[in-house]
Each structure stands twice: as C-alpha cells, then as structure tokens.
C-alpha cells in the first residue's frame, strides 16, 4: 500500500473519531482505538486500554449536552505499520450548567495497524485554549513536548 493511501486512511480515522463525538456513538468512537490504546488528557495517569477509555469518554460526554468536534486534515508521517500525526481540533461545548465554551488544541498521536486497519495507539491532547466562546479566557498557545510512546 502506498504511503499516501495510509495517510488518507489515517485522515479518515480522525474524521471517524470526530463523527463518533458528533453522533455520541460509543461504538463508532471506540472503533478508532487500538485495544491497548492510551489516552493522555493531562491528568497524572494516562487512561489505558480501549474499554477503560470508552468508559471515561462516556462519563465525560454525559456531562456535556452538546459537543461539536471539528478536526483539521492534519499532518501525518507514516513509517511502515506505525505512524505519528498531529491533528488540530476545535470544539464547541455546552456544559451541564448551560455555559457555552470553546476548546481548541492539538492531538499528538501515534498510530498502528491492528488487523490491517489503522488505529490510534495513543492520543495526547494539549489544550491551546479552553474558555468562553468569545476567547476572553486565557490563550495558552502551543506547547512543545514529546509524544509519549
């Protein structure tokens, strides 16, 4: 398979992830993760394993009546059966209190093939902004860091 085919599949994976969020469909969303995937959300301990990740995601989504997740096509580098990628996302969220917030950041990802299909082996989210939709909150900007692997 040509490298560009892999890149397109990985781009589609990020879009499927977004579709899972948009439709709040746990099966679609879970299908983008490797079974031993790791989700880094800035908490001291990463969330490990697809089953646990999906439980955490369901809990988080339960607290937000609305989550609109828009993802950019991203920058993807493929190396055989593994790849690294960066995807910028912006989310419009309504909280349980009815507040509208805007969330912008970047996912630094590692990917691998599982049963012939690309899956997220790890996703590490770094926020660039989270706050009021009018951007009156603190704009953090991009923070360089090393992808966990």
């Amino acid at each position, binding site marked *: 398979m*040509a490298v*560009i085919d892999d*890149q*397109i599949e990985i781009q589609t994976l990020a879009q499927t992830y977004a579709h899972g969020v948009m439709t709040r469909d746990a099966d679609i969303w879970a299908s983008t993760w490797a079974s031993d995937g790791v989700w880094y959300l800035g908490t001291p301990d990463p969330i490990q394993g697809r089953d646990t990740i999906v439980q955490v995601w369901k809990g988080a989504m339960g607290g937000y009546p609305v989550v609109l997740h828009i993802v*950019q*096509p*991203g*920058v*993807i580098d493929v190396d055989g059966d593994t790849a690294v990628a*960066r995807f*910028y996302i*912006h989310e419009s969220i309504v909280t349980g209190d009815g507040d509208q917030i805007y969330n*912008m950041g*970047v996912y630094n990802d590692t990917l691998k093939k599982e049963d012939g299909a690309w899956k997220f082996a790890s996703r590490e989210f770094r926020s*660039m*902004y989270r706050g009021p939709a*009018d*951007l*009156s909150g603190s*704009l*953090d*900007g*991009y923070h*360089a860091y090393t992808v966990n692997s």
Partner: protein
Amino acid sequence: MSATDDKFEIQTLTQRYADAVMRHDADDWGACWSVNGKWNLGPQAIEGREAIVTAWSGMMAGFPFAAFLVQPAMVEVDGDTAKSRTYVQETLQQADGTAFRVIGVYNDDCVREDGKWVFAERNYTVLYQGPVDLSGDVIGYPKD
C-alpha cells in the same frame, strides 16, 4: 505519482503550513515555500523565500497566540504545477491581550521543486477581520 497523490500532497502542504504557524516554527513554515516564492498579502507583494520568512517572523512576533485553521477547497494539478484554494480562519491575540479573527481565502500557485510540492505564489484575500464574535465588517468574497 498519480494526480490523486499530487492532490493529497498539496493538501498536506497547506496543513504543514498551518501546523508551522501553530508551532511558531519558521524553519518548517519556510520549507513550504519555493525559493522564488511570492506572497501577496496586500498592496505590496513580498518576493523570495528569505524575505517572506523574515516578514512572517516579524508579524508572528506581534501575536503571542496564533491559531490557523485551513479548510481544503480545491486542487487542480497540471504536471509539475498546480492551483489550490483553501479557506482559512485565523484567531490572533495581540500584545495587549485582545483576540481578533481573520477569515480569508488563499488562491495559490504550487510548483514541484526537487520532487516536493511548494508554494510558488500565495494570494490572500481577507473576507472578514474583526472581533471573534463577527461583530466587525464582513468584506465578503471578491467579485473577480
């Protein structure tokens, strides 16, 4: 390389450009340009990669925060040259802490140089510039 591959590589070029803006990385950003690139941002075009990178570095120094989102719209490949159009949404924070938004369209000429697609010419048209709540003046799409 097939035409589809070329289209994808050019789409990726616009993403790498955005990624470099996000990371304030002048080397990666400069690598998106042809040595003889031309950047039309306003009345006076900036010519040559070196001058373009210098101008960009100066602009970026004025923005502690810059988020640059790119929506692919069109790519037409003709051999070793191509035309591309992307829509961009910029969220920029000024030194005084206030944020503003620019929405615009890039009409580009791309060229394959040393086997790699780069920008030969980028033409930026601003469609909106003002507060992030879009309360400013909407300029709209140019007639021509």
